[in-house]
């Protein structure tokens, strides 16, 4: 009589992963190996209860292809353009605004401005070109309004 295979080999037979004819035949003919095989079958059928019939929802592939087709958002580039856009528009409207721009930086409010800036940037990721332009325009109008207000308050033109 040949030697009994270890439990992991018998498990492999049960899982259909052991191709050795000799091992398969041994298990059929050996009483103690058959007992091990039966015990293992109990373990396997308990774990088999985890098997699931769940299927992906119908729109899964459609959503996936849409996401695959979407170009990565050039956040860095858009950030640079927006920065230049607001800076230049401020300068062209009134060169004195730049002073305010810089003074904001000096007084430490720059982080607040940047926070808003990145919030807007984050929001823009989901926008199409049309809404992107609308948002940029709104941003500039808003900027001009704030700057005009400040001009009155700080008397920027006098300084």
């Amino acid at each position, binding site marked *: 009589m040949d030697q009994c295979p270890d*439990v*992991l080999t018998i*498990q*492999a037979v049960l*899982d259909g*992963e052991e191709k050795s004819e000799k091992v398969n035949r041994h298990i059929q003919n050996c009483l103690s190996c058959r007992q091990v095989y039966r015990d*293992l079958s*109990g*373990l*396997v059928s*308990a*774990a*088999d*209860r*985890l*098997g*699931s*019939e*769940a*299927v*992906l*929802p119908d729109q*899964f*592939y459609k*959503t*996936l*292809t849409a*996401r*695959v087709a979407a170009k990565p958002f050039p956040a860095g580039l858009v950030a640079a353009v927006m920065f230049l856009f607001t800076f230049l528009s401020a300068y062209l409207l009134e060169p004195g605004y730049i002073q305010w721009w810089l003074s904001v930086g000096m007084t430490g409010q720059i982080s607040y401005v940047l926070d808003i800036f990145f919030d807007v940037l984050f929001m823009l990721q989901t926008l199409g070109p049309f809404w992107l332009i609308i948002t940029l325009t709104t941003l500039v109008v808003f900027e001009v309004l704030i700057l005009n207000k400040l001009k009155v308050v700080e008397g920027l033109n006098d300084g």
Partner: protein
Amino acid sequence: MQKMLHDMVETYGDRIYRLALRYTGDCFQAQDITQETFLRAFQHQNRFDRSKPAGPWLFKIATNLCRNWLRDSREIPVSYSEEFNQSAAPGPEEHYLAKEREKVLVDTLHQLPVIYREVILLKHVSELSYYEICEALDLELTLVKNRLYRGRKMLKEALEKQERWI
């Protein structure tokens, strides 16, 4: 390229979804993980050796995403999801019992250490072969066999202990 993606989803989509579903217990979370798996596979397709089947590689990505989910959601206990039973539609009482048993099963699974849980899920939920599990988890064959054996044993014992109470 789209063809490759389509074939991959066709062949492995549901099996990855089931893995994620059992791993997270949440069908929305599971759909997210499955989407992300294919998205990453598509983005990194140059890293993939096309002469080999895509399965193990996809399951490797999916398992990593599941691990990330687990790491980020330590405090939230995994709960039973309605989704599991969608195929069976027995009477109210049977339905209740089946749900109870299902809940016990999933809870028990989540008591196992994650190294055993993963091997069990890949084998019994995603139906991978030993070789595919080795590739997906970067493990030696002996280790896979060993974890499978010990995991099954722990699961059965824990289940018996649990089910004595219902």
